[in-house]
């Protein structure tokens, strides 16, 4: 069910500075477009029609690339495609959980053109990488004519399709801290339909060990409610504890209560089971439980 298309102006700047100038010009009716897979859906369903689209197609030299900096932080350019991430030796070595997540994300054609920047800025709660990147303590660099700033992915989403990225801003880079690359991290996606569907529920867990005890635990959940978010209640229960099945079960039940409460019983059950499985997968030192 698509609405009648409206024409718009498509600009193709040759530099990030030029792109920022275009975004800053008439901010409200201008949007950046990279791979375009998400934006095309939003436009075809009539939710949003920009007056101007600023294509990032020619900016791969400035906005692409995957690298480790001298301190070991992983840096990913915003226009890096999801397929490039999936095929990257660096990502496979440093963050194998991301490769696993990407293999279940949409399909090869979408991953061939969709970019990590666009993926993060879309703001739909039913997406795979945001919870994983929250569990990895990732942060993004957001640029505009007013200057750049850094935003933790955990603080990126304010509502359904709503992010803190302003209309005149452009996400340019994603950084995963070195120590989180070494953490035990897993993303478990549940989809009730086809293999390439959006998640019905996605749970990401990351954590480190201090002696036999858990430290720096992150639990992030997508597709519940209007935004992807970390589950503070789960994290505080896990911090400093020895991992055990009993603990994971308790944390999972607490997560379901915190995220769904008196809401949909089916979703509450999904959360309870999937959080337990994700905790076991990431922190249990073995296979996911039943």
């Amino acid at each position, binding site marked *: 069910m698509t609405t009648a298309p409206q024409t718009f102006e498509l600009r193709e700047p040759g530099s990030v500075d030029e792109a920022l100038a275009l975004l800053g010009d008439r901010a409200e009716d201008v949007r950046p477009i990279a791979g375009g897979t998400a934006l095309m859906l939003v436009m075809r369903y009539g939710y949003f029609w920009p007056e101007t689209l600023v294509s990032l197609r020619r900016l791969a030299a400035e906005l692409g690339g995957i690298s480790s900096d001298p301190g070991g932080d992983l840096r990913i350019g915003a226009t890096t495609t999801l397929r490039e991430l999936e095929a990257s030796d660096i990502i496979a070595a440093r963050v194998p959980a991301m490769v696993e997540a990407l293999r279940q994300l949409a399909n090869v*054609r979408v991953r061939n053109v969709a970019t990590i920047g666009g993926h993060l800025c879309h703001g739909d709660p039913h997406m795979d990488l945001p919870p994983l990147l929250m569990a990895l303590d990732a942060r993004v660099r957001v640029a505009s004519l007013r200057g750049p700033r850094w935003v933790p992915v955990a603080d990126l989403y304010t509502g359904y399709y709503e992010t803190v990225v302003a209309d005149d801003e452009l996400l340019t880079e994603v950084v995963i801290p070195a120590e989180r690359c070494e953490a035990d991290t897993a993303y478990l996606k549940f989809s009730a339909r086809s293999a390439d569907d959006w998640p019905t529920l996605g749970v990401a867990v990351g954590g480190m060990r201090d002696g036999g005890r858990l430290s720096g635990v992150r639990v992030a959940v997508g597709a519940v409610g209007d935004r992807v978010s970390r589950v503070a209640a789960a994290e505080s229960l896990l911090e400093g504890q020895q991992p055990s099945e009993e603990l994971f079960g308790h944390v999972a039940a607490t997560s379901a209560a915190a995220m769904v409460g008196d809401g949909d019983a089916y979703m509450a059950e999904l959360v309870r089971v999937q959080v337990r499985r994700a905790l076991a997968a990431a922190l249990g030192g073995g296979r996911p439980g039943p």
Partner: protein
Amino acid sequence: MSGERQLRFELNGAPVAARAASHETLLEVLRTRFGQHGVRESCGQGVCGTCTVSVDGRAVSSCLMLAAMADGTRVRTAEGLSAVPELHPIVQAFVEEFAFQCGFCTPGMVMMAGSLLAENPDPSVDQIRAYLNGNLCRCGCYPEIIRAVRAAAVMLNDAGR
């Protein structure tokens, strides 16, 4: 600005040009300007695969690509595999394995198979399933399609291509 622009790109190896409105998709331009009816719209969301084409060597959903984004690129469609009388090995394999019934999904399946075999000349059944998981066949010919991709891989590897 009217939002229309002149596009120049390569289609199945030949230089072509067309005027397109800014909102037109690559799928619409390929079908209406160039008669590429093997490029089809079914879901309009990029998940069914009937619109699969290759742009600069990468399989894309043409229903989600603005035609303007294909300006200056090399586009390939299933029509480009339609050599006669000697069929392209992938097409030959699909015929020999009866890997279609109504044929609606077939151009997209063939294009996606071609993309897979270019990246991975000897894919396992699991790898074929994963790679083609975004191509739907409502007639349910998935077992035959998987056999056809395996057969095509063997043919192409035997021919040293």
